[in-house]
């Protein structure tokens, strides 16, 4: 399989997972998007543009999914942003406080991201991954100005969420 795919897959799954909130579903979307790109490989220079096209395809698929489906939440899943339910983690296996704090922060970011609308989330994540405003605008089908607004509000919301979570105060 092409080298660019192996390089892009981890980030693509992480991104899709963040957008749809379900790892299995995310992997399914990523696989489908990769297959579609490979079917139409003749139209593109995938070595050069494959990663960008894949993220665009994932963005569209995830947004479509959100607009098509109303997500239902099982009581078993309630309380865990990653949908892992109430299963108790083996704390003995990760004793260092730093690891625990990192895990707490990871869960907080995951939870914070789920409070954002899918377009806000996509804009923020794509920005953090280094995509330029114009590229994100193209992926989301909005104007560059819209992207800037989405990212600005998403950052503000995330900062407020994290501050509330860890200090009990919202940022200004």
């Amino acid at each position, binding site marked *: 399989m092409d080298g660019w795919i192996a390089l892009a*897959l981890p980030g693509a799954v992480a991104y899709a997972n*963040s957008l749809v909130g379900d790892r299995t579903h995310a992997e399914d979307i990523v696989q*489908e998007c990769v297959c579609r790109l490979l079917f139409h490989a*003749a139209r593109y220079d995938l070595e050069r543009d494959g990663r960008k096209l894949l993220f665009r395809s994932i963005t569209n698929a995830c947004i479509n999914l959100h607009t098509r489906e109303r997500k239902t939440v099982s009581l078993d899943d309630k309380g865990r942003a990653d949908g892992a339910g109430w299963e108790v983690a083996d704390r003995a296996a990760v004793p260092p406080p730093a690891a625990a704090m990192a895990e707490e922060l990871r869960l907080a970011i995951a939870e914070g991201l789920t409070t954002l609308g899918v377009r806000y989330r996509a804009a923020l994540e794509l920005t953090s991954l280094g995509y330029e405003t114009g590229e994100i605008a193209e992926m989301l089908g909005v104007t560059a100005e819209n992207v800037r607004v989405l990212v600005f509000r998403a950052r503000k919301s995330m900062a407020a969420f*994290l501050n509330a979570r*860890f200090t009990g105060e919202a*940022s200004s």
Partner: protein
Amino acid sequence: MNLTLPVDEQDVDALVREYLEASAATVDVERLEREITARLGEASVMRPAPASRLPKLLARTGAWATAAVVLVAVSAALYFTLQPEPAGAYALVSAAQQSLEKGPDRCYRVEGRLPEGWLKANPWLRVGEAATVWTRGDRFLVSSDNGPVDVHWGQDESRNFWFIAGDTGFSFRPGETPPILLRTRMYLALNPRQLLNRFLKDFDLTIIKDREHQGQPVVRVWATRKPESKDIVFDTAWIEIDPRTKLVRRLEVERNVGQRTPPFGLIFTFVEQASLPASDYQAQAHLPPGGVLLGPDQAAERDDRFWELVGRRRPAAAKSQEAADKAPVDSQ
């Protein structure tokens, strides 16, 4: 991940990036690649050729047709069981197309079974009984020297389409080519790269079996035109690809023109040859001594001479442009 409180809005990007990177680190890439490969394989196997497209010999009776379908299914299943690479027909043809796009010059011998009417109507774009096609990306050169006159036509690096008639060469920029030539060029469709592009877009592809060619493995792909595809000249094709190098070793395209008329088509066979000088893809290289090339700079004279040569009245400019816009162009 490190957190500095209070969280500033400018820190959010870095936190999100680290979160995504940590999440990415847990992805099992090898498993995903295996699953994608399996999906690609399924997709090609799940697109069976319509029964009416199967070779007539096998489709004559229900029993033969059933046997053929079973044989195809078993062959495909065996192929995928024994050959994890390449993944599927589309991936393989796509790789072959990319190989033609980026790779070195490729030379094919082309044998044609074409309607006499076409050959008479298009004496400058023909293959005769056999021709040689060189291709390098968008460039191609068709040479046939076994007819009454040498025939050369092709496309240069600027995608200018050209042909030689007697001591005069005609060269057209993309968008300038008269519709009559566009249609003829499409019918003869001698650029393997463009043909493969068509197969990817407008055909159902199925890997039928693998075989050997001079000790080397070759995968045979059966292509059938999708019913909804428009402006496609050929109905079926066999594409033989070396799975290791993605080289198209043989390509056989066919058009069914009715029960009473035998199908016509073209057979491309790869020929081991050294690369062609870049200048050979240009019209100038094939002009006879003292010959003149009429290109875009002499558009008025060129078009007058062209329509005189064709022996038809020149269409009104607007009509010509309209027709050109509607004509199915293969040059993209």
